[in-house]
């Protein structure tokens, strides 16, 4: 018989807080930034790439993972915890396809991940998962969706959101700049994600990883060349804006 833990680690404090969950949220705040944008026909995920050591292979560090053909997620927080959650979610996606003969809806898989996280805040001998996840994808009927989960096990739908280090700055930027015009085309939505990340990322395009899902198409990770091109476009647009403002002032 396996030894059984009979004492919970996550217990209430006198003023109603679950400290373990709050400490997990602190761990999330230390993770690298991730941003998610829901467009009209596209959903975009962008993450801040941590600088890799010289001898490290770049490809093995991936923060954006596909859960199924039409759903993917990015996370902020403890990478090892994320691996476990992603594995469980991938199994659940296939299990759902097997038993229900339909692909999961984004809300369903988010609910599954959130329930899994909640269970770990209320059981013996286990600590909460130290990750927040941004889950994006398209439903069977073609509706784009973006959800965010956090270590306590709650989940919400968003039009655009950011998690991790400097999430607040990015979210404020998005609140100012997410308009119907700014997501009018796919390209504009991608540029909005890059602009949001450029607010907090140091040296530009090299430190950004971007993935998009278009309706009825699988996950596509943008290559660094494409990202550089888009960053260059954004810089140009910024200069043009600055020029216009100068001209206005001088006239």
């Amino acid at each position, binding site marked *: *018989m*396996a*030894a059984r833990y009979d004492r919970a680690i996550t217990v209430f404090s006198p003023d109603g807080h679950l400290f373990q969950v709050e400490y997990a949220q602190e761990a999330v705040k230390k993770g690298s930034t991730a941003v998610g944008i829901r467009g009209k026909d596209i959903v975009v995920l962008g993450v801040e790439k941590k600088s890799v050591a010289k001898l490290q292979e770049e490809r093995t560090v991936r923060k954006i993972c596909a859960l199924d053909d039409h759903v993917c997620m990015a996370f902020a927080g403890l990478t090892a915890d994320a691996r476990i959650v992603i594995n469980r979610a991938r199994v*659940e996606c296939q*299990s*759902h396809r097997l*038993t*229900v*003969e*339909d692909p999961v809806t984004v809300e*369903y898989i988010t609910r*599954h991940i959130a*329930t899994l996280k909640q*269970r*770990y805040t209320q*059981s013996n001998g*286990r600590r909460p998962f130290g990750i927040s996840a941004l889950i994006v994808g398209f439903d069977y009927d073609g509706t784009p969706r973006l959800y965010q989960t956090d270590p306590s096990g709650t989940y919400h739908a968003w039009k655009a959101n950011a998690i991790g280090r400097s999430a607040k700055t990015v979210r404020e930027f998005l609140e100012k700049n997410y308009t119907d015009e700014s997501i009018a085309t796919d390209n504009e939505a991608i540029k909005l994600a890059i602009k949001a990340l450029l607010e907090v990322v140091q040296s530009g395009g090299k430190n950004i990883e971007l993935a998009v899902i278009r309706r009825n198409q699988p996950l596509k990770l943008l290559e660094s060349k494409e990202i550089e091109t888009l960053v260059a476009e954004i810089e140009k647009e910024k200069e043009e804006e600055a020029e216009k403002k100068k001209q206005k002032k001088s006239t």
Partner: protein
Amino acid sequence: MALLDVCGISDWVKEDGFNAERASVDKVNHFNFAAQTPELAVPVGVDPAEFLRPLVDSEEGVNGVKINLEHGTTTLAFKFQHGVMVAVDSRASAGSYVSTQMFKKVIEINPFLLGTMSGSAADCVYWERVLAKECRIYKLRNKERISVSAASKLLANMVVNYRGMGLSMGTMICGWDKKGPGLYYVDDNGLRLCGNMFSTGSGNTYAYGVMDSGYRYDLSVPEAYDLAQRAIFHATHRDAYSGGTVNMYHMRETGWIKVSQEDVGDLYHRFYSEKK
């Protein structure tokens, strides 16, 4: 635990499939679409499948006793351009004794899902009611009605756990979901087939004969009603274990309607007078 190991209990307490040890945190609960806890208790120390096999499978049975599990009834369902027709008889028999002529062999799971029953009345009624419960819970959790393929899969997964233990159930799950009309055949072996036309029970051969000779996909609604009714009637006429009344349902895009419930005696006179 130390004391348990010393006593050597783990030697003879087997971990069977249903109660395999898993931490409660890792057990998938409502996200797994099979019934996670066994719905029916199985007696300890007896393997029902092993017990039943010589009685059912072998030629001479056990001490000359052989159990034949027949599906004594006739039910049918077919898809056509205006939806799905479902027709059943209503006789329940115990051997050569007719228990009732007014048995309801169609269970109305929700306004867009029907299940027919053939085989052991108890098994069908029980398992289809469990299916109805699961379908209601699905709707509450996911805020949309369960699809016909998922509902039939749920039923098949539930009964496959009891394979070989003497369940006798041949059912058709009919419905209309966002993929259109759906018709699945599920039986006690866990077989699940998608198709356009099925008939189950001891009278199914007679029903197939009538259905196959009159079926076209582009039947009109009155023609389909007539075909379904005739097929069941002819089966009740020749099969001893089918009879009573013909209960007919029509599954449409807006849900099912109960078309008619006619006694086979009245049908006989109507069809007979047509012949003249």
